[in-house]
């Protein structure tokens, strides 16, 4: 595979492209963590990024909302296109991009000093009246399947919630801003199996409204929740490479690349 060819799935089902990268590389100082990734994400689909630890999945994900550049001496080469516009051109505003591309982190990170409802509306909600803000908070909390559990304690601290509830609050917080894309960085990594199942169900229902890109190191989870799966692997110099992208069912049953097959059959990683 040449590094410049864009990996896209050959399917008539998915034709609506919202997010794409072209020859994207990410660095920490001189260390190249992700190398020459070209990939296209579909609008109405959950894409899972899988691969062994240290293959650059999270770094790649953090390039999509320009969070990568916050790390020490981090930089990005290549382009990321959101609806055809490069989010890395000079006058692109990271804040505006992050409004359109929300993110859920590996560990629940509710804002400790804000109440549950304040957390939900933390993005601001400028121009909305109080009633409209509350309405939007309720809608987000319902969409995150959390409303019934918190509706009687909206003004209390989020730190009293369980880990799974906190993570759903973070999802509500991300979708309240009504982004187009939802990035999820191992959203169930710190949760127990029951809370994980709740989040996975939630992802399926959210996919009707948002494009989702989810990093996971759990292949079963990728197989369960995603429509499309992308497999990444670090090469011998430690640079994360995109190996293969395909419809999930196909990638897990008939992988095109030998390395993908080795990984999903558990021969390494």
């Amino acid at each position, binding site marked *: 595979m040449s590094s410049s060819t864009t990996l896209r799935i050959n399917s008539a089902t998915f034709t609506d492209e919202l997010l794409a990268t072209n020859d994207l590389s990410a660095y920490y100082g001189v260390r190249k963590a992700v190398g020459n990734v070209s990939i296209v994400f579909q609008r109405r689909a959950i894409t899972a990024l899988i691969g062994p630890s240290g293959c650059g999945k999270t770094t790649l994900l953090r390039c999509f909302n320009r*969070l990568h550049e916050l790390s020490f001496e981090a930089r990005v080469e290549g382009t990321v296109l959101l609806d055809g516009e490069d989010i890395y051109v000079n006058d692109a505003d990271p804040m505006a*991009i992050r409004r359109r591309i*929300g993110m859920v*982190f590996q560990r629940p*990170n509710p804002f*400790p*000093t804000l109440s549950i409802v304040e957390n939900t509306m933390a993005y601001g909600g400028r121009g909305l009246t109080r009633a409209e803000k509350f309405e939007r908070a309720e809608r987000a909390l319902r969409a995150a399947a959390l409303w019934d559990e918190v509706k009687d304690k909206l003004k209390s*601290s989020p730190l009293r919630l369980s880990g799974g509830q906190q993570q759903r609050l973070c999802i509500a917080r991300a979708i309240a801003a009504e982004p187009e894309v939802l990035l999820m960085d191992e959203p169930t990594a710190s949760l127990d199996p029951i809370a994980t199942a709740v989040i996975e169900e939630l992802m399926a229902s959210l996919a009707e409204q948002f494009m989702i890109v989810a990093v996971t190191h759990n292949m079963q989870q990728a197989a369960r929740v995603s429509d499309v799966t992308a497999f990444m692997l670090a090469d011998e110099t430690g640079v994360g490479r995109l190996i293969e992208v395909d419809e999930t069912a196909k990638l897990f049953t008939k992988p095109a690349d030998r390395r993908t097959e080795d990984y999903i059959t558990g021969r390494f990683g």
Partner: protein
Amino acid sequence: MRNQHLGRRRIYATLGTLLALCCAALGAAALLAILGYVVVQGIGVINWTFLTQLPTPVGVPGGGVGNGILGTLIIIGIATAMALPIGLLTGIYLALFGRGSIPEALRFLSDVLSGVPSIAIGLFAYAVLVAPLKHFSAFSASFAFMMLMLPLLVRTSEQAIRSVPQTVREGALALGMSNFRATWRIVLPTARPAIITALLLAIARVTGETAPLLFTAFGSQFWETNPNSPMAVLALQVFNYAISPYPNWQAQAWAGAFVLVFAVFALSLGARLALRRAMRGFEA
């Protein structure tokens, strides 16, 4: 052979523990002795008059340090009003953009400043605010106190902001908040208890300072509230009374020392309580 070694090790371990305990007891005893002595000597003189009245001339019984207590509050209040914003904003700057030579230089200067003897800082305040204006003033004392509080506030508020988990900050930025808004609305409130702790400790640090006051606030016999004039300060009164030859002034010095120790004690206790509240927030 092995058992012999084990026995010797056990003896060493016991000896070590005993030694550590003795040293801890010695340290605690010294502190308790000071506290106890100040309480015993001072508490008899403390009464409402002492806390609220002006000093009386030598030989006239009664009198108090009311103006000194008020002066202490005014001078520390002005010092805090200047030191808190500067210290906090510098701390924010160091925590957010803390890499590179300028922040490193700032940190180094701040550490050096915290080691400068307070009398030297008092001299500096004298040189820039007293000598040119040709009169002592409470404000020059506030300025000296500010310089004493600054390094403490800078380094502790930097630490407090750094101790807020990076994920909380990134969560705010990922919602499209500006760097400033994320810091102001999310990171700072999370760090607030630790910052309050630092502030209380900084205030406690200067409450008992006397050296910089000698040639700045200077002292006063009256109810002085104008920061541009010489002002009575409790620590200064304690100093002057303690070195006087009059027994009733010496007694009042002990009472003043008791008030100072009590104030510092209360501030430290408040700082601990604030910190404990902060820790509770992070447990969940």
